[in-house]
């Protein structure tokens, strides 16, 4: 039995230690918000946070997580950066098919948490690992800037 801290809750389950976190989330715990796109860390669809850092869960063995905190798309709205990203995503209507967007939102939330005022080069560095087959990149860039701006408004206001 393994126990993980996911979105502030303890989850206990049984899975071989080399099982990537992605499949524990999706198939064992039924948390299907985190997506499978490639399985080789090339698309970013499976991005989760481990202690606040974005990690591709499709390659991360569940045994390597330890007692670090895992946050998934289901829980990211509870963080300040995550909530702002979700809001900006809807305000600018970023999403098309949406399949990549759990990963995009997780990557963007991690970026904002570590870099409150990302410029284009920060956005590239943080987001280029996330493929969007629908091609929502132009709006992703805008939405990240908007989400970053909102904190400013909140602070100033």
């Amino acid at each position, binding site marked *: 039995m393994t126990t993980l801290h996911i979105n502030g809750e303890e989850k206990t389950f049984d899975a071989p230690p080399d099982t990537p976190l992605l499949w524990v989330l999706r198939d064992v715990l039924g948390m299907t918000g985190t997506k499978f796109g490639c399985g080789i860390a090339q698309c970013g669809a499976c991005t989760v946070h481990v202690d606040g850092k974005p990690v591709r869960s499709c390659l991360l063995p569940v045994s390597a997580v330890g007692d670090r905190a895992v946050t998934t*798309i289901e829980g990211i709205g509870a963080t300040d950066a995550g909530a702002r990203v979700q809001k900006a995503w809807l305000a600018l*209507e970023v999403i098309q098919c949406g399949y990549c967007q759990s990963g995009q939102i997780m990557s963007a939330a991690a970026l904002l948490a570590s870099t409150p005022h990302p410029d284009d080069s920060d956005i590239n560095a943080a987001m280029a690992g996330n493929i969007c087959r629908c091609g929502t990149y132009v709006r992703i860039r805008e939405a990240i800037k908007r989400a970053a701006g909102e904190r400013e408004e909140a602070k100033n206001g």
Partner: protein
Amino acid sequence: MAKLDTTRRGVLATGLTGTFLFAFHLPVRAFTEPEEAPDSTQGKFAPNAFIRIDRTGKITLVMPQVEMGQGVYTSIPMIIAEELDADFAQVAFEHAPANEKLYANPMLGVQATGNSNSVRAWWKPLRTAGATAKAMLVEAAAQQWKVDPASCTAANSVVTHTASGRKLAYGQLVDAAAKVAPPKNVTLKDPKDFVLIGRRVKRLDTPNKTDGKVVYGIDAMLPGMKFATIEASPVLGGKVAQVDQAAAMKVPGVEKVIVLDDMVAVVGQHFWAAKKGLEAANVTWNDGANAKVNSAQIWNELRAASRKDGLVAKQRGDAAKALGDGEKVEAAYEMPFLAHATMEPMNCTVQLKPDSCEIWLGTQIMARVQSTAAQLTGLPPEKVIVHNHLLGGGFGRRLEPDMALKAIRVAQHLNGEPVKVVWTREEDLRHDVYRPVYRDVIQASLKDGRIKGWKYKVSGSSVVARWLPPAFTGNHDIDFDTVDSAVDTPYDLPDFRVEVVRCEPPGVTTGFWRGVGPNNNVFAIECFMDELAKKAGKDPVQFRLDHLHGSPRHQAVLKLVAEKSGWGSPLPERVGRGVSVQPSFASYIATVVEAEVDHDGEVRLRRVTCAVDTGIAVNPDTIEAQLQGGLIFGLTAALYGDVPIKHGRVQLSNFNDYRMLRIDQTPPIAVHVVKSAEPPGGIGETGVTAGPPALRNAIFAATGIPLRRMPVDREVLAGRKQA
């Protein structure tokens, strides 16, 4: 002899009047006759197959088209709600069940989503459905108030008697309205009175896509579910040779190894177990007849075919004679196979019991999944229940039922437990139906800066012949898709001939790929227009304008895009602008790509500008988004898309070798939507068609090298290889 009209519109229109659709027995209903709603339960007003209103006023709309990102779950509700005068905040959607009778696409004749025609096809029928339902609600209110319905108005889900100011909400009227006879004729709104259509309405499907709540086919979860993954023969027609079942069974979590003729499945407690089990099974294959197929052979066959005379798809004037008049120019363009690579890999969940089959997936073809599943299982179609989902990308890949059939074949070896079959990305890329390779040969003659004769011959596979055979045979063996934008070109070409040669590649199944036939036609034509312009010593935009007198809407978008893109303004060394114009999917689009080519042949996109006249823009925000996304989809293919074949096998594994454009390579994309009162055109595929020729022409402008093959060959641009 009947006049041939082989445009997509023509053929589809013919289809509607009965030729090939009859063969399918798929009558398209007149929507003024309300259908009996499949679940018209007590306490609901369900005037037809699309609208349900309950006593709380909640309006549920049944979506006859599927949502794969194109925004149709918002634009279709907008169309209905507009005529229904519904409060959009109370509108929710529901996936339609498989029902060809109720939900066949009026333009396709089948329950399918594709061809960028959801809005086009349903524009009239759904407005009528909405208007009819509203008339019934108004009638119900008028009866209650004992007034003339004409003295009442409706807005925001409320009927108002204008004179007395009395009001009744739709929710209060559902029981009475259910008893009202539907009117035979309703008048639709004048577009100037639209309150929803034309507004940037927020999408209905996106909130759940931000917090992980959305459920795609791959997210289906059922009690007692098993997880499986499959490996099908890497060579078309190959058979399983050896499987190390014992090794697979040793993998923790593996429960079963299913060895079929041409496919092996491993079933386990989760996908990871199944995947590791399948790797351990180390499947080997007897490749069969296609073992030696390779790209070179396919190209040789296609090139040979393209030298034959083709069937005439369309002609006017005397192309042969006109080609003798002036300077003759000829070029051949070659397009590669392409994979769809939907972000959600192929998958399907099936629960097969002796007397029923339930299927969970995301598909563009509900009814076909149902009928082919019925065939495979031997069950009557009504015992096959298909649960559709939001699609994690379709792009034409989900116009095929193969993922469902393979999952059923797995389920046939289980004891009634539900099984979710998820393909690895590798399996997804290697077992696609590929956009066909095409070769386009265009000849034209130029005189005094004008095109005289024009002969366009396209050679390639016919997807329609496989996918909808009656539409092929019923059209004299001419695939309307292959020649779509070739016969429909907007340019003034009085002496004109389009031929088509069908040539099926060995060992490869071809399929519809976002942008379909027009991708190829527009690419060839627009590249050739640039080459002609250069020969004629004309600016590419001006040369096009000179040949667009017959199409003012094209002229307008071309002028607009030239202005917005800064066409003609100076550019740095090795930077070029390229333009393309297209008629496809009943939208009028002109695009300018600005790109830089360095000395290594690497291409950097700098800026994309697009002007679009798509008639009435139902949701301008969606149109802009679809063009931005479509352009990226097309530019990705132009830069990287190729599916090499060797030893009968697709030489792709994952995104490491089927490469995608990423955010850091994406330029700013500006989309200018032209206001129009014309009926809406299609939009979902147009950007895909627009990008590649404009990019290729930008490269031509930057380097002087006229690329004639896709994808862009960086070796050629670096001067290390002949074009």
